[in-house]
């Protein structure tokens, strides 16, 4: 056991390197806590039960898209009989989840969901408001 020092030092180094992902995240303050999504304040009940929405919201939106674009059916009837306009912008984002960054994005980022491309085309009403405000500014100046 003449190489005791080298062996133990090597072991410590090996353990350090292999646990780096864990220690790095601990040092950075990242924990395994789920993201804190901001729930809508002005409504309590989503268009479907929360458990369903959590797992299958993308499927619901795909069905909505198919229904509106291809079949021309634009009204969605929930299980408890309420009716909604099938629209990501006007219903989901405008009526309930007014803060997309703290609801949709926060969870998508946490889950590393790369690109639901919805927002590449569909407009976040907040973004539209700021865009219009910035576009209107230069016109206001004489």
């Amino acid at each position: 056991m003449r190489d005791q020092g080298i062996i133990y030092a090597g072991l410590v180094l090996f353990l350090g390197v292999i646990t780096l992902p864990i220690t790095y995240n601990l040092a950075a303050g990242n924990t395994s806590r789920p993201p804190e999504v901001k729930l809508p304040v002005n409504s309590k009940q989503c268009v479907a039960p929360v458990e369903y929405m959590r797992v299958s919201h993308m499927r619901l939106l795909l069905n909505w898209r198919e229904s509106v674009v291809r079949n021309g059916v634009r009204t969605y009837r929930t299980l408890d009989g309420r009716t909604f306009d099938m629209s990501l912008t006007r219903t989901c984002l405008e009526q309930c989840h007014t803060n997309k960054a703290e609801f949709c994005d926060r969870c998508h980022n946490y889950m590393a969901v790369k690109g639901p491309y919805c927002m590449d085309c569909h407009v976040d009403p907040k973004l539209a408001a700021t865009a219009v405000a910035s576009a209107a500014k230069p016109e206001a100046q004489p």
Partner: protein
Amino acid sequence: MKKMTRKGFLKAGGAALVVIAGKRIAGTEGAAAAPPPPPGALTAKRWAMVVDLARCREKEGCTACIAACHREHNVPQFNDRAHEVKWLWKEPYANVFPENAAQYTEAAERGGPVLVTCNHCASPACVRVCPTQATWQREDGIVMMDWHRCIGCRYCVAACPYGSRSFNWEDPRPHISHLNANYPTRTKGVVEKCTFCEERLAKGQLPACVEACPAKAIVFGDIEDPKSEVRAVLRERFSLRRKPELGTQPHIFYLI
């Protein structure tokens, strides 16, 4: 109980198959019925548009309809003509009606440019070539687009004899001055065109261009309905359609 013979078994099996097949056929026929339109929507058997060129030219350089359409549908404005995206625009007479332009008709052609858009043909070439069915014809004649499904192959752009389709060579978002949150934009790599404002029709509103025209030069309605306004104007006045010899049956009519 009587013992089932082989013959009896085959007979019963055959009868069951016939019953199942009959039910299948009846079932699919029932399901094929179109869903009812939303309440308050404008509906038609066949939508068509009539542009009264004399009225359209009343106010020279008027672009109210184009502005309204492009604002409503988040149509981007590119300065580079090669990247141009347009749903509704004006074109010189000789380009719109090349078969009706002669060397002696120049004076008449100088009357001004002609408003053009998607013709919502009865036999649309774009629909035939689309490999993903991203564009299709609705029962009311509107040549619709599903931008979700468009893969940007541009077959439809090549097929359309009227140049009614535009391709997004770049991300259109930065080129939209006033973003309308009620309508989606498109992305790079997607083809777009006029949809006869189907989203407005569903809400009971007339197309944006029809509503915006200060001279009431655009008439929109059901061409299959003999009592409609479009039929009334077409009965009374001479009209032209673009490139009728191609057999696409355009549903935009021009009153000369």
